[in-house]
């Protein structure tokens, strides 16, 4: 469990970091919190020969609201997301979701953007990004800044549309109005483990009717899965517990989950049925 040899670079600015990355993008990896990358290097599942540590790059941490958008800088630690004081349903969702990310030591080091760039289907932040159609702001030395929609960003397992010479610098999320109800429910064998299945939900309920429904599921597909079937069941209907159960059924029918040592496909479908309503209920102040 010792990594292969690598060069270690510690740039002091974003420009310097991008320049270093551009020099040999195929062989380089950006290091932020290191909570996934370092174990993978120790297992020699990843053997980058150049590591670019962006922990000294300024202006990559923090959350700020501008208009109806929340910008989360990429290197913001999970713990800081968990401690956010943003009022309303988005702030609540972020706090709830952060509580499911690993254990406290992991949360003090791991980063929001790192988790999204890593693109693990079980990651809470990938779920949230998919759920709310987040926009990823990425930068390269040669092409400058561009924005990628979540639907285009997550490609397949551990694969995003981030180019090898690009760095993810921020993720932008919509600040949800007070009519929105957000929630997350996760099932893991042990506290702090990656969820076997995770359900994240955001419903805009206006005068008892679901004006808009967003449902994202983790652990059922190689990337976060937006359940169109469930969203269709919910949208435009009067909000009732029965409606949510029907949506969960639709989602369970729609997914084609993998089987592994933690559970087979049918069990994961059962978890979708169980967790989707729990996510909705958690947002309504009940479990």
């Amino acid at each position, binding site marked *: 469990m010792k990594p292969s040899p690598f060069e270690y670079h510690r740039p002091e600015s974003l420009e310097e970091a991008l320049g270093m990355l551009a020099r040999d993008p195929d062989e380089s990896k950006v290091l932020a919190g290191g909570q996934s990358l370092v174990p993978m290097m120790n297992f020699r599942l990843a053997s980058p020969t150049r590591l670019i540590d962006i922990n000294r790059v300024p202006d990559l941490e923090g959350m700020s609201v501008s208009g109806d958008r929340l910008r989360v800088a990429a290197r913001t630690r999970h713990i800081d997301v968990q401690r956010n004081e943003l009022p309303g349903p988005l702030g609540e969702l972020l706090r709830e979701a952060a509580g499911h990310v690993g254990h406290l030591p992991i949360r003090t080091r791991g980063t929001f953007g790192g988790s999204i760039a890593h693109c693990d289907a079980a990651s809470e932040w990938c779920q949230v990004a998919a759920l709310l159609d987040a926009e990823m702001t990425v930068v390269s030395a040669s092409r400058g800044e561009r924005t990628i929609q979540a639907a285009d960003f997550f490609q397949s397992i551990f694969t995003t549309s981030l180019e090898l010479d690009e760095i993810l610098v921020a993720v932008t999320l919509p600040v949800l109005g007070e009519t929105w109800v957000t929630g997350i429910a996760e*099932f893991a064998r*042990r*506290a702090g*483990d990656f969820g076997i299945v995770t359900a994240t939900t955001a419903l805009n309920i206006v005068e008892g009717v679901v004006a808009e429904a967003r449902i994202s599921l983790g652990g059922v597909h190689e990337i976060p899965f937006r359940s169109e079937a469930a969203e269709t069941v919910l949208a435009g209907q009067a909000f009732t517990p029965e409606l949510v159960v029907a949506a969960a059924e639709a989602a369970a029918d729609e997914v084609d989950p993998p089987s592994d*040592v933690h559970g087979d496909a049918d069990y994961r479908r059962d978890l979708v*049925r*169980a967790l989707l309503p729990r996510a909705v209920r958690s947002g309504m102040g009940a479990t």
Partner: protein
Amino acid sequence: MIGDRARRIEDPVLLRGAGRFAADTVRSGELHMRVVRSPVAHGRIVKVDVSQALLLDGVVTAWTFDDIAELPAIGFRLTPRPELIPYRQPVLARREVRYVGEPVAVVFATSAYLAEDGAELVDVEIEPGQAHLQADTEPIPWIDAEQATWASNTGDQVAAQDSEATTFVEEYGDIDAAFAKADRLVKKGTHRVFTTEARIGRHTAVPMECRGLVASYDESDQLLVVDGAAKVPFWNREAIAAMVGLPPHRVVVRETHVGGGFGPRGELYPEDVLVTVAAMRLRRPIKWIEDRQEHLVATNHSRGQHHRIQALVRVEDGFIEAMDAEFFLDQGAYVRTHGATVASLTASMLPGPYVIPHFRARARVRLTHKTPAGTYRSPGRYEGTFARERLVDTIARELGLDPATVRRTNFIPADKMPFERPIQAMGTHLVHDSGDYALLLDKVSERFDFPGIRAEVEGRRAQGELVGFGFGYFVEKSGIGPFEGARVAVDGAGQVTISCGASSVGQGVDTVLAQVVADGLQISHEPIRVVRGRTDLFEYGRGAFATRLAVMAGSAAAIATEALAEKARRVAAHEFKVSFEEVELVEGGVEVRENRAQRLTLGEIAQLLEPMNAAAMKEEPGFSADGWFRTDHMTYPYGLHAAVVSIDRETGHLAIERFIVGYDVGRALNPTLVEGQITGGVAQGIGGAVYEEFLYSEDGTPLCTTFMDYLIPTVREMPDVEILLTEDAPSPLNPLGVKGAGEGGTTAVAAAIGSAVDDALRIPGAITSVPIRPLLLRRLVDQVSIP
């Protein structure tokens, strides 16, 4: 002092981070060893080419089997049944690989990083064969005559062997006669025959500290010094000496701090041989520190049993007339140092606390293409207790009897103690030395209000919750001999040192030995120094296993202390010119009864025993005394585990809401340490019952090689363990009356949880295997008929 909740004398060092674990030993010029392991479960070795590794800067050398061909296979430490010899493991894979993780080559380099880089450059080519993964299907051809002959190493030809390494029977009474009349009794309606199955998943200990060893040959002292040993340093000294070709007195094996043992840690493995042989050959210090991924495929696995039990039972009260059991033990790819220990213990301890007049257990130890298996905390008892207690629950349910009553009916009565069961356990006659099994059940039931728990569970069930209560009863064994020794010495400053052959795996043996000596000398235990685990500082030691040290080393320390106190009184009597009877030991000194002003402290007595003066008193010089404790029999502590569990209908999540342990240890030398042992043991038992299992794909690839796949319970999954310690049955076999505390926290966890889950589901006999996963529970929930 004995029986006090005394603070651990080990802790000040450990809490300051000043401990020295295996990896903390650093020697100048040391080389780091990295093992190249087989990536396939079974296959013929076509090529192992180390030439590219040798070209890497920093790599000093690399070996394959051919480089160590003269080393024999690794021998047995315990239960060395002769038929097992052909199945022993070579130090490096020879011609074939038989499990993923088997050492095929080894690289030595100037850093751990370079050693791992070098290991990646070793070119291993293996022609894969079929992986055989089931221990309970028909045996298959396993090793050819050439391999069997080589592994046996006797010079005689040995025939090819199949995958059943051994099968043997432990029995008493007349099982065939008992079952011969079964048909008639069943027809008459007085008896019934029950048949049950039980499976216990393959899992093992994952001590916080993985294995490690540092060896260096000291040219000036002409000594091979081995640091980082654990558990059995004295036995390993002999084994290492034989492997490296030195006489034992030229080998020093030293225990450092040990971050947990639990059975696997400290046995002699291929890596230990490679480290020590390399230290001799290369004449440089060699260091090997196992990483966690290696640990999960290289260190002994355990459990992995499938039981089938048939029992002839009296209908009236559930009395078990006869039990006929057969079990399959998944041994993995080789038979390691434990020989047939686990199978033997499983068979002999299967009857547990019950009389069972006619008994037979047939053990079948079968090889598979998996990591070799050995002992793990409560070996054989964890498995057997699950199988037996599931049977007893089945009997109670089918006959409509209360499960506690059925157990009472079958208990060995207190007035039959000591109770001899005419079978062997670990080579000793199995004699339950003392016990009142019904009394403990009464006490636990009263202390924790079992009727109240039952009522609460019923109330919640009426509300629709899936909640259940169940328990399992067990007998443990501890204090295996044949001997242990201790020397207690006092210096001129009055400070006490205990030297012994004991080993510490972190269990607090230093503290309890200090308490025993402090008790005898009426002094504080805290300043006492305990020297153990060092082959250069004591002559004999059998090791830290089988829950033996409180009994064995504790008794030896008590005997030594008594001898030391006598010597102190002789010296004082001589000094004050009074008789031996006129002086007594009081609080670290000896006083004349009639004139308390005439007092010598232990330090003063030590000064009087300097050689010239000692001769004048006709005493041996030095203020020390040795004590030896010998025994042919083990002690048998016993206990009860109970659990309250609830099941989430939708996810199948199992919550262990309460876990209760009642345990009789004869005499608790330090109740806090006993409770600590029990609580840790319960955690490991919960691991095996709910979370931990090594799974394999069809081609034998292990699927659980990190802590993301091999799930050990954390503090977040652990219930508070509620413990009742009793001392109703002191052992008559040792001066302290003590029985061991090391394993009783683990023994009946699977049995208790299995019983509670059955109860929660109200599906009798639903749980026949562990670990109990949410996937299974989710499916069982669909069969629940209650609302």
